[in-house]
C-alpha cells in the first residue's frame, strides 16, 4: 500500500518521495549483498587477479615476480601466438559462415509443410545434443586415412582419399566440417523461431504484386529475419571463437601447430607449460578481442532493429 501511495504522490510531491526512496535503499540493500558477493567473487575478483597475474612471471611450482607489461610485449612478438590468432580468425570465419548459410537454408525447408516434418526436424537437431568430446572421438575414428569410413565413402564414388586432419592444409577445413555438422541445427532452430513469428500480410501483398519467391525471400523474409540472424551470428561467433574441445580431442593443435588456435595455445601455456603469467596475458588479450567483436555485433543488431 505504501508503495502505491509513494508512486502516486511522486509527481505531485517530489520533496516527500525522495527521502522515502532513500529509505528503501537503506532498508533493503542487504538483499543485494548475496548477488554482489557472487559477482565480486566469481567475476570481478578472478578478473582482477588475472590482470595481476598477467603482470608477473608466474610459474606453478616456482616463484613469481613482477615484470610489468613484459608478458604483453612478448605476446606481440611471439610468432606462435600471432599465428594462433590468425588461425582462430580463419577457423571462426568458416565455422560461422557455414552453419549460418546451411542453418538458414534448413530452416526455410523445415518451415514448409511436408509429410514427417516433425520427425525430420528431430533427426536434424540430433547432432546438437551430442557431447562435443564424444562427437570428436567418433570423428577422429572416421578421419583415419586408411581405416576411416570417410575415405571408404570417397572411394565408392571414385574420389581419391583425403588426409582430413592428418595434413596441415586440410586440417582446419576438416575441423570446420565437424563444427558445421554439430552446430547448424542451432542456427536452424533460431531461424525457424524467427520464421514462425513473421507476419503473413507482406507475403500476401507481394503475391498480389506478382513478386517471385526469390524476391519475397530477398525483400521480405531476409530483412524481417535479420534480428534473429544477428542473434544466431553472435552466438555462433562467440562459440567458434572459444572452440576448444573438438580441436583438442581431434588434433591437439596439430599436425605441428597447424590447428593451434588461441584456446589451444592458452591451454598449453597455462596447464602444460605452467606459465600462468603469460597465459593470463593471453586471456586478457583474447577477452578484449571477444568483447570487441561481441560489441560490434550488438551494435549491428541495434542498427538492424532501428
Amino acid at each position, binding site marked *: 500500500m505504501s508503495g502505491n501511495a509513494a508512486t502516486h504522490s511522486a509527481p505531485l510531491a517530489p520533496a516527500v518521495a525522495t527521502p522515502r526512496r532513500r529509505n528503501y535503499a537503506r532498508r533493503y540493500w542487504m538483499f543485494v549483498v548475496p548477488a554482489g558477493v557472487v559477482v565480486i567473487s566469481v567475476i570481478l575478483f578472478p578478473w582482477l587477479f588475472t590482470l595481476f597475474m598477467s603482470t608477473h612471471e608466474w*610459474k*606453478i*611450482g*616456482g*616463484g613469481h615476480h613482477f615484470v610489468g607489461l613484459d608478458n604483453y610485449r612478448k605476446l606481440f612478438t611471439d610468432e606462435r601466438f600471432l599465428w594462433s590468432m590468425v588461425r582462430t580468425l580463419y577457423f571462426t570465419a568458416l565455422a560461422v559462415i557455414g552453419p549460418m548459410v546451411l542453418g538458414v537454408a534448413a530452416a526455410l525447408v523445415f518451415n514448409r509443410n511436408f509429410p514427417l516434418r516433425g520427425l525430420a526436424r528431430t533427426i536434424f537437431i540430433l547432432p546438437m545434443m551430442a557431447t562435443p568430446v564424444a562427437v570428436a572421438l567418433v570423428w577422429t575414428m572416421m578421419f*583415419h*586415412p*586408411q*581405416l576411416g569410413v570417410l575415405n571408404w565413402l570417397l572411394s565408392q564414388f571414385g574420389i581419391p*582419399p583425403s*588426409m*582430413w*586432419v*592428418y*595434413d*596441415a592444409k586440410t*586440417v582446419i577445413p576438416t575441423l570446420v566440417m565437424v563444427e558445421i555438422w554439430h552446430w547448424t541445427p542451432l542456427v536452424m532452430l533460431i531461424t525457424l523461431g524467427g520464421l514462425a513469428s513473421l507476419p503473413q500480410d507482406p507475403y500476401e501483398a507481394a503475391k498480389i504484386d506478382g513478386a517471385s519467391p526469390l524476391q519475397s525471400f530477398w525483400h521480405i523474409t531476409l530483412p524481417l529475419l535479420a534480428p534473429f540472424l544477428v542473434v544466431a551470428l553472435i552466438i555462433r561467433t562467440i562459440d567458434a571463437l572459444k572452440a576448444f574441445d573438438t580441436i583438442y580431442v581431434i*588434433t*591437439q*593443435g*596439430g*599436425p*605441428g*601447430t597447424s590447428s593451434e588456435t588461441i584456446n589451444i595455445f592458452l591451454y*598449453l601455456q597455462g*596447464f*602444460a*607449460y*605452467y606459465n600462468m603469467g603469460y597465459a593470463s596475458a593471453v586471456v586478457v588479450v583474447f577477452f578484449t578481442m571477444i568483447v570487441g567483436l561481441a560489441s560490434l555485433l550488438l551494435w549491428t543488431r541495434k542498427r538492424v532493429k532501428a
Partner: protein
Amino acid sequence: MFKITRRGALQGAAGLLAMPALVEKANAQSAFDWKQAKGERLEVSLTSNPRSVILTQNQKEFEELTGIRVGSEQIPEQQHRQKFAIEFATGKPSFDIVGISLHVNKRQVGRAKWCADIRPMMADASITNPDFDFADFSEGAVAYSTQSDGRMDTLPEFADPWIMYYNKELLAAKNIAVPKTFDELYTAAKALTDPSKQIYGFVGRGLRNANVVLWTSFLLGTQQRDTVDGSMKLITDTPDAVWAGQMYQKLMRECAPPGSIGFNWNECQTSFMQGRAAFWIDGPGFAAPLEDPKRSRVAGKTGYAVAPAGPAHHHGALFGTGFGISEASSPARKKAAWLYLQWATGKQNQLRYLTGGAGAPARMSPFKQEEALRGAVFSMDYVNCLSDALKICRPGLPEIVPVTEFRDTIGTALTNMVGGADVASELKRATDAFRPVLEASERAT
C-alpha cells in the same frame, strides 16, 4: 619302507641349516604391525591405466590388512598432471599419495619438494615390513625415482621400456628376419612397404609432442644418447641428433602410412591391429588389445622384440611412474601412506601387473615367477622381451622441468621433417627456440 639316501640326507641337512633364517623371517613377518595406523583415512590420486585398476580392485585387501580406509581417484594422465601440480601449488592438496609420471614431472616435483623423502621411512624398521625387499626393485627404476640431490621422493611403481612389435605373418611372407639395428629396421620396413596393398613397413607416432619419444629412441642408439649434456646444455642439433632425425624422417616418410604425421599411439595401434603395418615401436602396454582376437587381426601373430640398436649403443627408451607421499600430509597420514606404498608396490601387486598384461613392474621378482607367468594372459615371448628391455633401457626424455615445452618444440620440428623439411635446419631452429626456455628454467633451480 622309508629309505635314507645320501641325497635325501643332504637335502634334510640343508633344510635344517636354513631353518633358523626361515623362522626368523616368518617371525619378523608376523611381528610387523600392519595395524599401527588403524582408523586413518588416505586419499590416493592415480592416473587412469590398467595398473591403477588393479590397485583399486584389490584395495579392500589393504584396508583389511591395515584397518586404514582408502579413497582413490583415477584421472586421465594429462589432466592428472595438471591437477596434482595445481593442487600441490595451493599447499593443501586433496590427496596423501599421488602417482607421478617421472619422465614428465620428476624435476618439477623434486624442485618444489612437494613429496616427502621416503628414505627415512624405509630405514625405520618399526614402519617398514621386513619383507619389503627394496633390493628387488630394478636399478633403472630406482635411479629414475631418485632426485639429483639423492632424495627419493617417489617409490618406483612401473617401468615402461619401449619395445618393438612386429607382424610375424608379414615378415614370414617376405622371409625377413627381425631387425637388430635401426639400419636393418629401415631396410626391412622399406622392403615390406606396399602402398598398393595398403601395407606399410613401419608405423610410429607423428603427432607433435608424442613423436619426440620415437626420435629419442633412435637418439639413444648414438654416441651422445641424451638430449641434454651433463651441464644441462641442450644438444639437440648435433650430428647424432641429426642422424636420429634422418632415421625418423626416412621411416615416417618412406615406410609409414599416409597421414602418420598426425598419428598418436591410438592411430598407430589401429593400423598395426588391422595388419597394415609390419613394425611398430612404442610402449609395452598395447599387448592386450593386439592379442584380443575379437578386436585384432594380428592376435597370435604379433612378435615382441627389444628396440633395435643404434650405431653406437643399444638402449630402449624408458618411461616410468612412481608413488609419492604429499609433504603436506600430517605425520600420522604419512605413516599410513608409507604402509600403502609398501602394499601397492609389494611383490604380489607387481606380479599382478605382469600377469594381467598391465605393463612392466618396477620389481624384478615377478619376472622369475615362471609358474604364475605360464598361466598369464600373454606368451612368455612378451614377458621375456619386457625383461630384456628393462636391462637395456635408459630414460627417453631429459630430466628437466619444462619437459612438455621441450616435447612441443622438438615435436613441431619432427612434424615438419615428416612433411619434407630439412632435418638439420629444423633441429637447429627448434634448439634455438627451446634453449632460452631451458636456460631460464635451470637458472630458477
